[in-house]
């Protein structure tokens, strides 16, 4: 790696130090355990857990997956063991690794979001809370908030009161207006943004004349989503002065660099983990090579580079 040795991959986001700028997206890495048979968890910059809800959640009826060209639809529907078992089984296990953990919090009411976020913060084992207000697969609490900046701000403010660790809000790509939403969330006290969640999407089996997904609709992820994510990061980072974690169809090192240059301070890999469990360690090495080939010594030099070069 001779020439790449001078490259520094460390970043700091909302005050959280990361050894490299690649996290694993919520829902695509389980809570680490399943993947740990194949990947060294400490090779990740950070891990975003599967959504945690107050009560256990069975999730949506199958089929929950459908592959499209360069994309994938899912309608998992927040299947998880619930807060209590997450706090007793998963979070303590994860905290045994040198790995900052963002706990993805979801709910079906404001009270549930507040209760879960507060317990996660009090556990002392999480680096940050990632508020998932953008899951396309549950009506109330999911897509609902993302259409109403005022209500979203109200939710963020309530959660802010009970959380002592950095609070990230995860937004969908297609919201009323990314700038307006980002400002509402920032004013309500968020410390960072996660951009983006999946896009609401649907596919039809024309032979049987029925939807491909048991839940009828789902969310689109993967490379098809990538340019949408770059745009969302660009819009949000131009509207607010909050750190952004960019995600959506990162499949290669240059996909990640696009997000950095558009304004993301770190990136998260999602669907790719499902295909290539060791994707993050590979991307880390590719980024090292890219930076040394292009004369970047730190990741920060690339973050927001387009605006610094005068693009508006």
């Amino acid at each position, binding site marked *: 790696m001779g020439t790449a040795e001078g490259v520094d991959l460390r970043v700091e986001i909302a005050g959280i130090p990361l050894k490299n700028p690649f996290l694993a997206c919520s*829902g695509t890495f389980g809570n680490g355990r399943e*993947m740990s048979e194949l990947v060294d968890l400490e090779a990740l910059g950070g891990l975003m857990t599967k959504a945690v809800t107050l009560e256990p959640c*069975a*999730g*949506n*009826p199958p089929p*929950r*997956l459908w*592959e499209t*060209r360069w994309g994938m639809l899912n309608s998992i529907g927040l299947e998880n063991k619930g807060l209590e078992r997450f706090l007793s089984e998963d979070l303590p296990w994860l905290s045994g690794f040198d790995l900052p953990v963002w706990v993805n919090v979801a709910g079906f009411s404001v009270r549930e979001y507040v209760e879960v976020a507060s317990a996660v913060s009090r556990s002392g084992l999480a680096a940050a809370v990632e508020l998932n207000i953008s899951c396309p697969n549950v009506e109330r609490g999911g897509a609902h908030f993302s259409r109403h900046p005022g209500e979203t701000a109200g939710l963020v403010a309530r959660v802010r009161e009970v959380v002592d660790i950095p609070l990230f809000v995860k937004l969908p790509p297609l919201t009323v207006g990314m700038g307006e939403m980002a400002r509402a969330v920032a004013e309500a006290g968020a410390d960072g943004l996660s951009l983006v969640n999946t896009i609401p999407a649907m596919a039809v089996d024309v032979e049987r004349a029925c939807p491909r997904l048991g839940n009828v609709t789902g969310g689109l992820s993967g490379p098809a989503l990538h340019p949408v994510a770059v745009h969302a990061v660009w819009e949000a980072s131009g509207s607010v002065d909050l750190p952004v974690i960019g995600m959506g169809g990162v499949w290669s090192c240059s996909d990640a660099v696009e997000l950095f240059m558009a304004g993301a301070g770190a990136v998260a890999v999602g669907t790719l983990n499902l295909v290539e469990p060791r994707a993050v360690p590979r991307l880390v090495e590719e980024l090292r090579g890219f930076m040394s080939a292009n004369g970047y010594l730190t990741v920060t030099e690339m973050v927001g580079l387009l605006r610094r070069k005068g693009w508006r």
Partner: protein
Amino acid sequence: MPPLLFKTTLLERRDYGCASELVFRVPPGFQPHPGQFLHILCDGEGRLLRRPFSVFGHNGRSASVLVREVGGGSAWLRRRMPGDELDVLGPLGRGFDLDGEEEEALLIAGGAGVAPLVYLGQRLRERGVRATLFWGMESGKEYGTLPERLGEEIDLRLATTDGSRGKRGTVLDLLPCGSSGAGFRYYACGPRPMLLSLASRLAPGGLSSLQVSVEERMACGLGACRGCAVPVADPPGAYRAACREGPVFGGEELDWERLRVST
């Protein structure tokens, strides 16, 4: 064994009508249990996800899968030539339970569902369990000469929908009359409607002697994404991941009513 992620070389491809057997090298320590599957990358045309295929054979340093062509991924895989590289993740999932009191095993296959049962049959025979393979297909030529080959190693009974070979009808028409559970263990893999009919034939008493391998669409294959949900009876309303807690489930574990609805 924990799953391995490896690139390997295709050693041999044997074509059998609508399907091909792919034989490839496996790394040291690769020890699949019957019913486990391999998650194989099928490149190209914007295809992202791996495709799951049951272990069809395993012999020390090589293993094989039987790939039936149903769409782009399986078609791509079937066109691989000896010497080509394959990207494989596995073995994955929970396989068949080989223990049981009954001395005689009935292996019930529909179409490409024969793959895991052939490997299972080998392992059962090694343990001195008498195994008969019942295999249903559309027509006698569908799988080329595979029936002849399998017939050399296992007691094989065939049924075809068009009656061109073996008994006319479905694989269930082949089962010994009155076989509603007692005295036999049942291992089954095939299309959902076949599994549903078999379960209703065995229910309620015989479900405890039934094990089925369930096919569901998969992404990670590791239990991480919860995409491959299969409805189970206990607790009511719950799902299990086919890729990790399955693909083999006991007849009593599944919620057959919800399976029927989602089919």
